[in-house]
Structures are given as C-alpha cells and as structure tokens.
C-alpha cells in the first residue's frame, strides 16, 4: 500500500517538477507569479493531441502503448508551446513591463490570460476526456505490491534525461549562464552586457517547452481534459516555492515532495481532500521557510 503510494507519488512528482521548473524561473527572472503557466501544460497536451490526430499514436513499441509518433508529438508540442509562451509574453506581459506596471498587475493579467487560454481549449475540444492512445497496458510488478505501467516508467526515465540536459544547459551554455545571472540580479546582469530581452525570450521558450512535456505526460496517464493544467496549478507553485525560486534542483525536489505528499495523504485522509495537500505544503513552506529549500533569503 505505502510502496504503491510512493511509486505513484514519484510519478506525479516528476510531472509536477517539469511544470514547476518554469514557474520557478518566471518567479525569479520575470519577478511575478505566472498563474497562466498551468495553461501551458494544457496547451502542450492538446497540441500533442493535434499531432497524434494527424500522425496517429503509432504502433505500440515493445511494452509501451505508443510508437515514435507520440514522442515526435511531444517534441512538436514542446516547440510550439515554447513559442506560445513567448507570444503571450509579447502580447501581454512585455507591454505591461515596458509601462513599469506593478508586479501584481502582471499577476492579474496572468489570471486573465489563463482564463482565455483554458477556454480556447474548451472551445475546440469541449469538456470531454481525450486519449492519445486506447491501447491497454499491463502493469509491471517492480517490487512486491508495487506496480507501474511501462508508459509511466518511460515518463520517469525521460524526465530524468530532460532534467539532466537542462542542468548541463544552464551550467555550460552561454544562454544558460545568462539566465542564471538574470535570476541572481537583473541589474548586475544588465551591467555585464547581458541582453535582457533575449534571456527573457529563452526563459519563456524553455518554460513553455517543459510545461508542454509535463502536459503530455499528464495526458498520457491516462487522459486529457481542459483542466489538466489548472488542476496542477497549486502543486506547481507549491513545488517551485518549496524548492526555492530559480533553483532547478529545488523545483525537482519540490515537485517530488508535493507529489509524494499528495499520494501518501490518501493513506490518512479521505481522497476527496487529496487536492488540498499541495496547498498545505505551500502554506507550511511560506510560514516556516519562505525562501524555500534552496533559495536565498532576500
């Protein structure tokens, strides 16, 4: 029972972590809470559905329920969602930034953008659930009493690869270093000749791409619906703030903690209250250590 809850928690945690990385970066680099981030997950999931609609999910490869087409769909969705995030910034947030708007005005605008984005999805697909593939899968018994689907194991592996590559990108590439510099101090970064607009563009594209992957993974286990991102909103923020904003490792660990807390809570409280767990984690962090695990005190 506990073993299964931990396995489920790690899976949910991986998905939350991918989404939380973007939230964490926008909080640190753009300096505002982007409540529209959850909708990037939704858009990513549905953009992949569009691709799958044309290409098909592919014939199941090995134990997986899909073929290479779904992986291509995820990449397609990641690129497009990155562009969508950047377009939303150009249309809304950049204009507000230029005017020197209060950071909270940006939060209001983010909520507005989230309403529009989520309901555009409803407009096209309605509230019904959608599936990438209808293949049935048999769970693999990893440990006695702990089962996972091959798709889920695949998701965990791919998440690990993505996080490690992101770490290398942030550590060694020029853009990655510029992003970290901006996260630490926007003024200092600007003085050192870093192009602020370029860094912001890359931050949006990366956040959007990661969000899309999170959305596709959430849609794969097991279905898509227009609230797929919105339902994770609090979890994303809880993970980002728990980890400490601007920290990649923090967002990943934060995601895992929130995912585990959500799934382990079912052992103690009624499942109806499961969705309140991220909020309780968030509240505890804000009260005890507002800078998060890896954040610096401001």
């Amino acid at each position: 029972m506990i073993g299964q809850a931990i396995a489920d928690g790690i899976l949910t945690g991986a998905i939350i972590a991918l989404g939380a990385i973007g939230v964490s970066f926008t909080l640190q680099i753009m300096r505002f809470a982007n409540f529209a981030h959850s909708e990037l997950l939704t858009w990513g999931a549905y953009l992949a559905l569009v691709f799958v609609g044309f290409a098909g999910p592919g014939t199941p490869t090995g134990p997986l329920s899909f073929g290479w087409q779904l992986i291509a769909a995820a990449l397609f969705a990641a690129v497009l969602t990155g562009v969508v995030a950047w377009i939303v910034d150009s249309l809304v947030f950049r204009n507000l930034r230029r005017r020197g708007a209060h950071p909270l005005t940006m939060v209001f605008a983010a909520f507005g953008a989230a309403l529009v984005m989520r309901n555009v999805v409803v407009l096209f697909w309605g509230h019904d659930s959608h599936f990438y593939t209808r293949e049935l899968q048999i769970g693999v018994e990893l440990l006695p009493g702990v089962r996972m689907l091959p798709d889920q194991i695949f998701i965990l592996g791919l998440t690990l690869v993505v996080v490690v590559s992101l770490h290398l990108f942030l550590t060694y590439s020029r853009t990655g270093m510029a992003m970290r510099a901006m996260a630490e101090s926007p003024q200092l970064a600007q003085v050192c000749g870093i192009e602020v607009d370029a860094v912001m563009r890359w931050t949006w594209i990366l956040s959007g791409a990661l969000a899309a992957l999170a959305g596709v993974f959430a849609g794969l286990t097991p279905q898509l619906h227009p609230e797929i991102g919105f339902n994770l909103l609090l979890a994303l923020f809880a993970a980002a703030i728990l980890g400490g904003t601007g920290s990649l490792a923090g967002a990943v660990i934060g995601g895992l903690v929130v995912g585990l807390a959500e799934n382990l809570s079912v052992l103690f409280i009624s499942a109806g209250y499961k969705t309140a767990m991220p909020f309780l984690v968030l509240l505890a962090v804000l009260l005890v250590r507002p800078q998060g695990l890896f954040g610096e005190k401001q």
Partner: protein
Amino acid sequence: MTGIFSYLVFFACIVLIFGVLALGLNLQWGFTGLFNAGIVGFYAIGAYTHAILTAAPQPQYLGNLGLPWIVGILAAMAATALAAWVIALLTIRLRGDYLAIATFGIAVSIQLVALNWEALTGGSQGLSRIPKPLSGVFDTPLAFNLWFLFLLAVIVGGIYVALERILRAPWGRVLRAIREDETAAVALGKSARRFRLEAFVLGSMLMGLAGALYVSFIGFVSPFDFLPIVTFQVWAMLIAGGSGNNRGALIGALVVWGIWSASGIAVTKVVPPSHAAQGAAVQVILIGLLLILVLLYRPRGLAGEAAVVSRHAAD
C-alpha cells in the same frame, strides 16, 4: 413585457450582490493593495453559514437549524470575519504574489470542504429550502424580487456610505499610505500589519455578507456556485470599474455582469444546446480578454481613483 421587466429586476439583484463583493475587494485591493485571489472562498463561507443556520430542518443534516433570516445574515458576517482573521494571521505578512497564491489555495480548500463534508453542507447536492425573507408577504416571484431589490439597494447604499466615510477618515488614509509607501507609513508610527489585517477582515466580511444575501435570494446553495470563476468576475468588475473608487466598483459590477449576461443570452440563442460548453467558454474568454485589455489600455478603469485623498490636502 412583464417577462423583460422581471428579468431586469432579477438582473439588478445579482448586480447588487456582486456590487457588495466588488466593494469588499476594493477595500482590500483598491485601498490597501492586498491581493485576495480567494474571494469566492469567503463568499462561500458566508453563503454556507447562512444556509446551515436558516434552512428548514432535515434529519440527515447536522445544521439546517431553521433560525431567522437576520440571525443567518449576522452569523454569516461573523463567521467570515473570523475565518478571514485566522487566514490573515497566517498569510498577511506574505509578499504580494505569495498572498495571491495562498488565498487562491484557501478558496480551493473551502470548496473541497463544501463538496465533501456532506453531513453539514449537503455535499454536491447542496442545501435547499432556505427561507427567503418575508416571502410570505411577497408571495409572487416578481413581488419578492422587487422587495429583495429594495432590500439590496438599502444594504448596498448603507455599505457605500459607510465605506466612503471610513476611507476618508484617518483610518482610510493610513490604508492608502501603507499601500503607496509602507516604509514611510511605518516610520510615522502606523502598524502596517494591523491596518492590513483590519482591511482584510472587513473586506472579507462584506464578501461573506454577499454570500448570505445570495443564498437567501436564490433559496438554495450548492458547491458549484462557488467555482474560481466568481473570483475572476469580481476582479474584472473592480479593474474595469476603477480600482480605488467605490463608485467604480459598483459601475464595474453593472458593466461586467451586463456583458456576462448579454453574452450568455446571445450564446444560448446562437449556439445549439449540444455545444453549451463551448458557449460558456466564450463567456469566460470575454471576461479574460476584458481583464487583459483594461489592464493594457485603460489601467485606471472606467472611473479611476480620485487624486485628492483629503479635503484638507489642498490647504
């Protein structure tokens, strides 16, 4: 003809109830700069407190005490104020966007309680048979709505006058001083924390009152009346009307609810019932676009905040 007239009366009642919500938010955001993203949570506490205390007794529920209307209204305000006070003690020191996240989470949790604590709240069924005030005297729906409209007009008028008074008084000026420059206000010996807390509790109490008025107007309560969209609607009202201006908050309630209802009617006329979800989505998209466009092109709203804070300032 009477159909349109009854509809307008009903419409005006809803606008005034939203007006109470917008006035409460204006006190928190407009005057104090507190970002409350959980409006619907406080609205729900007021609504459920009223319903639990006044609904006709039924054996399967813990509440449903059948108490008089006025007791329900006062208790709803007290319960919401108490909840807001506890929440504020925990969260009021958070920086702006964290307060938004925290209050948003509180609203989600409150809705979960409403949905899951069946013995008290009726779960997804909600509670019905909530008495409407003086419905024995005004026994046709139109007569009752007209009477309720009058009642609401008196209540909203009273709140408006009271808010205008306290906001022009030293208390209200301190709120704005804290909003504009906390360090300066604290240097003058004002406790930013205390004033924030008071504004948050008072604003939330108004939201609770709005909830109680809503259920005693409609006659039943269900968790599906308290979805996050209500919070966004009230924001759109305040931002479009003019944050920091109580008249603006009321104008915003009228304009935004007008757009919401008109688009709703247009959608039901044009869109076939099989695509009702898409129609509703169009309504929400309009609210989101309105919010963004006002922030981008008319940040002061229809009626912005008055530039003069005190009639003594000119001296």
